[in-house]
């Protein structure tokens, strides 16, 4: 079912774009990523709304009073928080949906890249059974896995003066950090110290985690992360939600 709904369509779309752009798999991944991001654009916009509403609620007197009142009773605090969410029509998970949706996309794309860049006859045989009849695998195969200095089926390293530098992994980590800093909720004092600490911690954890993925897995996946990060930064900037002042100082108070 997973293959039928995710991996096979992804593989075919990738191969279709690959043929369309003159047998350039890197370009195919970039276009595919942009398409995916455009598809989930409404969800990202909804995420922005949810996080904005959540942020406003967390800055309100009502929220702060509640925090004080139930400071020593976590159970009651959680219950009161839920009541407030209901009262203002906020879905606390709404801001997580676009992130959640990314997971199957990342896994599906990773598998599609590996299938497309078959490394053995058996994998090619598998690929040929996944390709829709409208695509002619005899014309497409073998795929050109080279893109710039990268082999998209292998973890990326750039040879500079005899050293192997994981340029893409560094770029992924850097753009993930930039994205986290630019889009982080503007909370961070008083009652929300714990949240702020966690946000700060995530702003460091995510770049390390995605950087590690980019370092360890096929560079086609790292390319997806990089393009996806750049797209998100541009999208937030276009929606007026990117706070560039956070890059050079502390979080701006809302």
């Amino acid at each position, binding site marked *: 079912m997973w293959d039928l709904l995710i991996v096979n369509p992804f593989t075919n779309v990738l191969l279709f774009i690959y043929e369309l752009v003159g047998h350039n798999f890197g370009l195919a991944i970039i276009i595919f990523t942009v398409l995916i991001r455009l598809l989930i654009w409404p969800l990202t916009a909804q995420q922005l709304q949810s996080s904005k509403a*959540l942020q406003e609620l967390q800055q309100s007197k009502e929220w702060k009073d509640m925090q004080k009142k139930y400071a020593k009773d976590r159970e009651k605090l959680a219950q009161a*928080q839920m009541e407030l969410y209901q009262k203002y029509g906020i879905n606390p998970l709404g801001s997580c949906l676009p*992130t959640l949706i990314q997971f199957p996309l990342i896994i599906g794309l990773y598998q599609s890249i590996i299938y497309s860049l078959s*490394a053995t*006859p*058996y*994998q090619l045989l598998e690929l040929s059974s996944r390709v829709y009849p409208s695509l002619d695998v005899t014309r497409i195969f*073998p795929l050109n896995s080279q893109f710039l200095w990268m082999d998209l089926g292998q973890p990326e390293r750039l040879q500079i003066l005899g050293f192997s530098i994981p340029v893409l992994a560094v770029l992924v980590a850097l753009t993930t950090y930039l994205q986290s800093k630019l889009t982080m909720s503007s909370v961070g004092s008083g009652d929300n110290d714990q949240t702020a600490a966690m946000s700060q911690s995530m702003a460091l*954890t995510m770049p390390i*985690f995605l950087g590690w993925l980019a370092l360890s897995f096929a560079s086609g996946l790292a390319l997806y992360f990089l393009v996806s990060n750049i797209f998100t930064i541009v999208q937030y900037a276009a929606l007026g939600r990117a706070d560039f002042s956070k890059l050079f100082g502390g979080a701006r108070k809302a």
Partner: protein
Amino acid sequence: MKKTQWLLPMILLLALLLGGCSSRGQVRNWPGLAADEDVLYLADGQLLALDAVTRNPLWAFPEEKDPNLLIFAAPAQTPDGHLIVGGAAKDNRLFSLDAATGQQVWAFEQAERGWVAPVLVLDDVIYAPNSDGFLYVLDLDGNLLWTFEAGSPLWAQPVADENTLYLTSLDHRLYALDLRSGEKRWEAELPAASTHAPAVDPENGWLYVGGLTEQILALDAASGEVAWQFDTNGRVWQTPVLRDGVLYFGDQSGRFYALQTADQSLVWPVLQPDGGVIAAPLVLADQVVFATDSGQVYGVSLQGEILWTQTVEGKEPAIYTPPIVSTGGEIVVAPMDADAQLAAFSPAGLPAWTFASK
């Protein structure tokens, strides 16, 4: 609940899922199978040497299974008693092993990708095609003599006649090289990528090759010119087997062919029992053995009568590896996703034995 509280478990989940997926992304291929008088060799990720009579394991290389060192190509024997095999995964060294003990003698480390095809050993020269698109030619001590660069991965074992080496590449080409110097004599454009070697016909000087298109081509071995072509019903994934002027092969649609090279007529009409044919058939004195991707093994008379059928046991067994004959005269197949790694049948098609490593 804050978004950040969800993120940590989510990234851990993603790490787990991707970790799980990486095994799906792991290099996988059908096993390599070879035999000499005393030993059966099975390359199913790990190279196993089994006593040909008792099937007792003699040694394994690497000694323990290693996801970074996966061997799928059948080993080739050298005149000095060594076996040449290469790793298809992260560890892509080409090894020379002591055939008696499985101990490493030397390793060639210059290739950048995996070794998918068996190497060809002719006298004291090793012709080793690699997925990085290079043919590496080595002496028996592992010293590089010369290389030839094709435009794409090399997945097929080279073949040779007296003076020329023939090499198919995934770049839709068949190359003819001088056997000693590596100088290119000609290259022929094929309609699609070919994953297997051509069959050499020394009698009339033709080469026969299939590929991811639905045809068999006959090319002039001296010039690479196409002499004739035969349209098949499906893709041809294997080297056709030539015997007495007849080419035996199967296609992915499941048809068995016996094609007379002289006039391209078929010895028998359509024979398509069940399952696609990826593996080259085994041609014996009085029958041709076809194995299919549905786990069936067929003994077919040279006139096209199905003599016997056997099914390999397993959940979704498939046979992609060409069957071989063991010392005892049994027909041995190496299925994938089956209960056993090896299954053997008598020439009359009766089950003889199976082997599964612990």
